[in-house]
């Protein structure tokens, strides 16, 4: 039930990449300058050669590939760009949230090769060749993932901002075999903060999915 279809390695690699998708104009622009070969890490250019300051960042873009929600993408970004900022600012996948940018809140939790990962603690280029699933890839078309259904049923959120991260963590928590009891869930979900205090409802939702009750 926690099978994550978008993680399946079946991306269409027809060389068209985004052309058939609805990505935004600025993304296309950034792709237009993408190098087609993967280059090694760039060096940092100094913008003002006569300055004795630390090197001023004019980072050359780095090309790499990612599979995001089942779509294979060839990308080119500033090497300083985190996976989180790549998703939010360049791919238009704003479902993954920036809560703290320090790996302390869990709002940016995504799946990388099926494992839960904090997208803010990882540079995008470090994910070269990996399969990323974000909250936008959790449902199968119009059919919500059971965990999404359970969050709605048990009101496992209020403002909704931590929700994508909670959901991605919850799905992993089940997969990892860490959802066997309320105490277990509480422990293994504690990396995902919720300031609205939806914790008890989230725990109920996860237990419900664990026992398959969401379809009852």
């Amino acid at each position: 039930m926690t099978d994550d279809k978008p993680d399946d390695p079946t991306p269409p690699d027809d060389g068209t990449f985004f052309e058939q998708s609805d990505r935004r104009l600025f993304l296309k622009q950034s792709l237009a300058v993408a190098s087609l070969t993967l280059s090694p890490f760039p060096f940092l250019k100094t913008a003002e050669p006569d300055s004795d300051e630390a090197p001023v960042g004019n980072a050359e873009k780095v090309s790499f590939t990612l599979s995001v929600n089942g779509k294979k993408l060839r990308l080119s970004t500033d090497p300083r760009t985190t996976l989180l900022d790549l998703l939010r600012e360049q791919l238009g996948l704003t479902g993954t949230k920036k809560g703290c940018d320090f790996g302390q809140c869990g709002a940016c939790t995504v799946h990388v090769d099926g494992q839960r990962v904090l997208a803010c603690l990882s540079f995008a280029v470090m994910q070269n060749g990996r399969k990323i699933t974000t909250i936008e890839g959790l449902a199968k078309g119009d059919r919500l993932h059971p965990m999404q259904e359970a969050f709605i049923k048990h009101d496992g959120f209020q403002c909704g901002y931590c929700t994508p991260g909670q959901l991605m963590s919850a799905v992993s928590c089940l997969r990892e075999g860490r959802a066997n009891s309320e105490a277990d869930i509480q422990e293994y979900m504690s990396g995902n903060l919720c300031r609205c205090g939806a914790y008890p409802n989230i725990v109920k939702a996860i237990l419900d999915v664990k026992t398959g009750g969401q379809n009852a």
Partner: protein
Amino acid sequence: MANAHLPPAEPEPSLNRVDGRLKVTGAATYSAEYPFDNLAHAVLITSTIAKGRITNINAKPAEAAPGVLAVISHRNTPGVPAYPPLKQPAERAPIGTAFRVFYDELIYFSGQPVAVVVAQTLEQAQQAASLVEIDYQTETHQTDFVANRSKAAIAMNVQRNKTSPFQDYDRGDPDAMPSAEVKLEATYTIPTQHHQPLEPHAIIAVWEADDKLTVYDKNQGVKSAQGNLAQAFKLPRDNVKVNAQFIGGAFGSGIRVWPHTVAAVLAAKQVKRPVKLVLGRELMFTSVGYRPFTEQKLAIGATKTGILTAIMHEGIGQTSAYEEHLERTILATRAMYACLNVSTRYRLLNLDVNTPTWMRGPGDATGMFALESALDELAFALQLDPLELRLRNHADADPERNLPWSAKSLKECYRMGSEQFGWKNRKPEPQSMQTDGMLVGYGMASSLYGFHRHPSKAKAMMQADGSVVVQSATMDIGPGTGTAMTQIAARMLGVSPKKIRFDLGDSSLPDAPGQNGSATIPSVGSAVHDACKALKNKLLILGASMPGSILSSAWPDEIEIKNGRIYPNAESRSSVSYADILKYHKLPQVEMTEESKSGPERDQYSMYSFGCHFVEVHVSPVTGEVRVKRVVTCADVGKIINDKTARSQSIGGVVGGIGMALMEESVMDHRYGRYVTSDFASYHIPVHADIPQIEVFFVDQPDVHVNPIGAKGLGEIAIVGVAAAVANAVFHATGKRVRELPITVDKLV
């Protein structure tokens, strides 16, 4: 009684959130998430000193960095038109002046915005921000509340306003305290606490034309933000559009328009492009207010039988050097218990810090921590059950205003809560209950929150296909406003919630107050009720005017409406639908807009919500670690509109209260006047493992005097008193009375 206020049919008592699907799929769009082709990114630079002046800004390295579009400070700001002309030399703003962004070289607090860097990408802006060199001349700052306590004074605002509730207050006999049979005096301290919603404050500012501004801004009131920005930038109100459809929590931090919002608007003006500015978590500690450090002295006099004879409550709150922020801290004490002799004092202490603001249960969460802790201390001194002490002093009418309550079911809350919790199993002596080597403590506290209702408008529109759109410029910071409003509309119109859309969070919609003070359901809910009622009546008249209409001879009282079909009475098999009526009259839409507001009932009744919390804690006798094991919370907030979302709101309040009680504390290094708690690793809020299942009970009876829907609002009262209930439980477990929050292990071992 409920039927007099709402049609009896409840389409779906526990309607799931109408925006639930958007939220669980990541499709809900928050302020920083609107796409613009030409978007530039801004990063704020803030002062590293707490008081003094900027002597030099070297922006050249930053300006030369790749992608940088502008570095804006007081030296080159396009300026906020409403600010007064600069004085030379710069003069410190008098108290009562809202902070002016990039106005002059003066520094009022550490973390003050002093410049903003705008670049093509976020990475470029962040890098460039690190290259801006700022020199300061420091002056001696005062940020330490305790060291400066003696300078606290009556707020100037209060001195000028003789009818201010914060004037010194005395009722009854001044000799009651000295002559009391039992006396108790204690000081309670609340540290600075921060809202820290999971979504950082963020804005995208777009100048559509030289005199037209659109902002996608995280705030709790699009209408007030619109007015504020229009005033600041001297624009016609309608030329400013504020959009905030999804807000990732706020808890009070979004009530004002803060400096970073103005900074982003200035930046967008300067670079002539849409500009996005998102506060980093660290800036969330100095940019959007906080619950102020507050010290309270409580003195209580009582008879040996536990009748309160005198209460003296003094509070000192912290504020900035340029503004006065007043909270209700001492006000609850005047209304909570039947005590003839009550005095309150409220003072403010100006420090070189940013201005505090309202945080969930503002003032009352603070004040009731002190009052409800003191009641617990009194109960212990009298060897009386804490619940019994409260029952003996129950106020049957408002002792402050000498008015009847509009409704009060506090005794019912006490009864429900104590039964559900098993309060009777509590052994009176501290340290008398144990399990598995842990000390067990039972604690309880009362809660109250004043009723707020502001004039609100709503527009209800019946579409040709029988679907309904309801609109109001109200907000949803999390409680589920759209869901509750949809339910109110569904009940009134007899239309399935699935066929209703509720629009909010847009300043172009009908006027509504911001989301604060638990006023949304009472205010906007009433407007939605009235607008839908007017729409229904109009449609019934249109329906009755159709030739041969089954409605023409129907009694209005007998009409039943289900799923958008109108039956002349409950037995009737023939019906006419809303869609039929519009079709016959060839109307694409029928709409009604209504304004709803309080009337003379405000002077006839005293209006409050009441409730109570029961808490079980386990405390390790070795480490002093406190675990909350069980919470039962009860509230009488009138009619509950949506049980499911209301329950979540109550749970959220309890979780916030547990944080307040056990972990939340913003610590400042006074050598620098700067917070050392600057992220979630140092400012602790509850996590999953800290929170048990929480049982919620509502009296759920409409308060017939407050508004047409009988509902009083829930957001604030949910947290009021929770910290005291936890502290009282810790005392019961350990025998240690902690009067200084948070209750950390160092205070218990």
